């Protein structure tokens, strides 16, 4: 059966309509492809118009799609070629614009699921002990201790801010409990030049880069010192000096941004990549698919890190997708990918380290699926015991905590101990409580900041609106919060 590129789709349609592909394929294999010119053979679908001067091989264009036809019509040679293949192995390569495909007479559908689940890379066992024959990227004591301290800091930060919301001191919060290893280990494997596009459950990356506890608190309280000028809900951090783009609540919208940014880095020949994070839920959004496809086509140095924590608010992954997780999708887009135990800080570190090298040196995107569990509720507006068993949550918190696991590893190495532990925890706790107090007492940004930054300059309609608003504020000051300066 000859397939000429332009008409391949027509041919397939025609073939399908003739009661099954296999009959035709069988026919063609019997006829050794010579039947293509036989008018009575249904196989011959190729309109003559696409093969000008069929009788004269020399007149063929060199277009890919036609080259096979040309070959085949040099009758004896090609027939002999096929004759020499063992029966049932009439595999040939065909050139389509979509690529070279290997032809097969056997109708075989690609299975919807793999025979075995995509393997998951881990190097530390559940007790934080190194698994034999594991390969990983070495981490120095200094880095390892910094990683652990940051993970513990993140835990305490989350606990205290969550409490602050419960006490009504901030309006909203969401925790990263259970995903500390993903946050910190990935950040540790990157450099400060790598551009980060977070979802919202990655404050650990910002913490690693040096965002202070005070800066976190300022944003949560939306005070004058908040870099975001009080415009967004708590946890919508952003810091240009840390190359961490501002969080937006919309899911997955950041993923294509990272691709554009990575393309820019490539064009500027920077020794840096873009990194973007999202959850299992985010991978259902169109922006995820758009971004992976664009990244592959534009050959951009971007690392996609999916925190597959099992839940999108109350939606378990079984209601989210039927693929074997996320890493397997990478191949569908032409993106190299890996599934990693997200609760294994060492594995995360190694995978991100390797991904970064490949991304930058080979100008390619990498997809990392970090499997984990969202131990906390989705946010302070959620009570996850409504949709999952409390003992399941507890089990993950006690038995599969990534922070404890890494602590075990560094203690085994003699790099950490219980005194260091209690010192760290009490110190961080005190710093946090102080930061919260300071942030709470601080002034809010002025009303003027309602109108700035909509555009680079304030347009006349906004100037007018500010003027009218101020008149209203003067007439009815009781309508307005006391802590926002006029």
């Amino acid at each position, binding site marked *: 059966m000859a397939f000429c590129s332009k008409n391949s789709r027509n041919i397939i349609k025609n073939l399908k309509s003739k009661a099954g592909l296999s009959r035709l394929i069988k026919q063609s294999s019997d006829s050794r492809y010579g039947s293509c010119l036989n008018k009575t053979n249904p196989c011959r679908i190729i309109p003559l118009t696409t093969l000008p001067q069929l009788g004269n091989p020399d007149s063929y264009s060199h277009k890919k799609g036609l080259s096979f036809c040309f070959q085949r019509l040099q009758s004896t040679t090609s027939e002999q070629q096929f004759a020499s293949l063992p029966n049932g192995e009439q595999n040939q390569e065909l050139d389509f614009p979509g690529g070279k495909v290997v032809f097969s007479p056997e109708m075989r559908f690609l299975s919807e699921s793999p025979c075995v689940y995509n393997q998951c890379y881990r190097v530390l066992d559940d007790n934080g002990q190194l698994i034999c024959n594991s390969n990983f990227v070495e981490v120095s004591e200094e880095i390892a201790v910094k990683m652990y301290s940051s993970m513990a800091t993140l835990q305490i930060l989350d606990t205290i801010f969550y409490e602050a919301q419960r006490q009504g001191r901030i309006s909203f919060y969401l925790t990263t409990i259970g995903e500390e290893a993903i946050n910190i280990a990935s950040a540790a494997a990157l450099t400060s030049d790598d551009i980060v*596009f977070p979802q919202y459950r990655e404050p650990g990356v910002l913490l690693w880069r040096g965002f202070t506890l005070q800066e976190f608190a300022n944003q949560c309280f939306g005070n004058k010192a908040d870099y*975001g*000028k009080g415009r967004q809900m708590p946890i919508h951090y952003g810091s240009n000096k840390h190359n961490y783009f501002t969080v937006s609540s919309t899911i997955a919208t950041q993923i294509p941004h990272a691709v*554009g*940014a990575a393309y820019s880095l490539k064009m500027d020949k920077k020794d840096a990549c873009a990194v973007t994070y999202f959850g299992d839920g985010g991978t259902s959004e169109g*922006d995820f698919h758009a971004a992976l496809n664009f990244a592959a086509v534009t050959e951009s140095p971007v690392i996609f890190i999916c925190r597959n924590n099992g839940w999108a608010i109350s939606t378990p992954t079984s209601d989210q997708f039927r693929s074997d997780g996320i890493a397997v999708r990478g191949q569908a887009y032409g993106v190299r990918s890996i599934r990693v135990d997200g609760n294994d800080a060492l594995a995360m570190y190694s995978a991100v380290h390797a991904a970064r090298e490949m991304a930058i040196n080979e100008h390619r995107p990498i997809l990392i699926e970090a499997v984990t569990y969202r131990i906390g509720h989705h946010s302070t507006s959620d009570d996850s015991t409504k949709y999952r068993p409390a003992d399941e949550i507890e089990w993950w918190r006690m038995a599969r905590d990534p922070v404890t696991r890494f602590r075990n590893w560094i203690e085994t190495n003699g790099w950490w101990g219980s005194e260091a532990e209690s010192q760290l925890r009490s110190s961080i706790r005190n710093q946090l409580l102080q930061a919260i107090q300071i942030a709470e007492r601080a002034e809010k940004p002025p009303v003027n900041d309602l109108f700035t930054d909509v555009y680079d300059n304030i347009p*006349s309609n906004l100037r007018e609106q500010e003027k009218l608003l101020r008149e209203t504020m003067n007439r009815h000051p009781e309508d307005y919060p006391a802590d926002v300066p006029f």
Partner: protein
Amino acid sequence: MALRNILGKRFGVGLAGRRPLSTATCDVESGNAKAINLYSAINQALLIALETDPRAFVFGEDVSFGGVFRCTTGLADRFGKARVFNTPLCEQGIVGFGIGLAAMGNRAIAEIQFADYIYPAFDQIVNEASKFRYRSGNQFNCGGLTIRAPYGAVGHGGHYHSQSPEAFFCHVPGIKVVIPRSPRQAKGLLLSCIRDPNPVVFFEPKWLYRLAVEEVPEHDYMLPLSEAEVIRQGSDITLVGWGAQLSIMEQACIEAERDGIFCELIDLKTLIPWDKETVEASVRKTGRVLISHEAPVTGGFGAEISASIVERCFLRLEAPVARVCGLDTPFPLVFEPFYMPTKNKILDAIKATVNY
């Protein structure tokens, strides 16, 4: 002069006078000018943008071979496929990618093949691009992003090759919406949009791509944004419009003059932020206003202009604000001539308003 050379059955010939631009940022008249059409003018603007800024990029579906409307002809050959390239068929990806590129300080010039297909990118435009600077406290911005899309009736476009979606975007603080009426305007406005430090949506009247021919200076020039232009002076009624519709309105103005009605015609050019001052000044002079656009009348941008003018000029108005717009239907094929705001519909409305 701008509209004189627009050919075709729908359009008349000649424009009595032209008030020079009051606040041109650059002397448009100086230097060599050649008569070219709209897509060539766009092509020139893109070429200049790519030439003058090594960090400018042009991308979208089919832009590499020149684009379905030839606006990007020759650019890939001249500047290379790293800077002028095809994207996959995915508008949300095109704009999302463009935002990321712009956020890194580049000039990302994205093409959406038809304005009718811009909607998959609506989330990226509204929730991301327009808020990028504001939400970050001005730490980040994607001002280098310009999205170009052909819009408007073309005679045979039907539902999905004729839409005028500008009203959706005019409701989004943080972006600018710009629509040129002619080749010379298009080149200068597009360069301004590209260089403006805010994300801009630039709608190009596809009807005029080949049909509108005008003397366009060959050099690099920019026309100011958010400045409306009075393109015909008059004392009896103010007409406000943008894009291809202006030439229809101009025809109506010419015919109205034969009946002793002198119309002042204003090209808004930038829809948001729009130049209320120029329109208001004109209405204070004439006491009457008529707005015309192809997009459906309900919720169209004419409604915003009308409400604003009534607020600001109520006591000066001699008649209700008139709107001559498309019908509240999907854009039809066979019924296009019935749907469109024609010269005669406008003329009737002018007379009704003047005789109110």
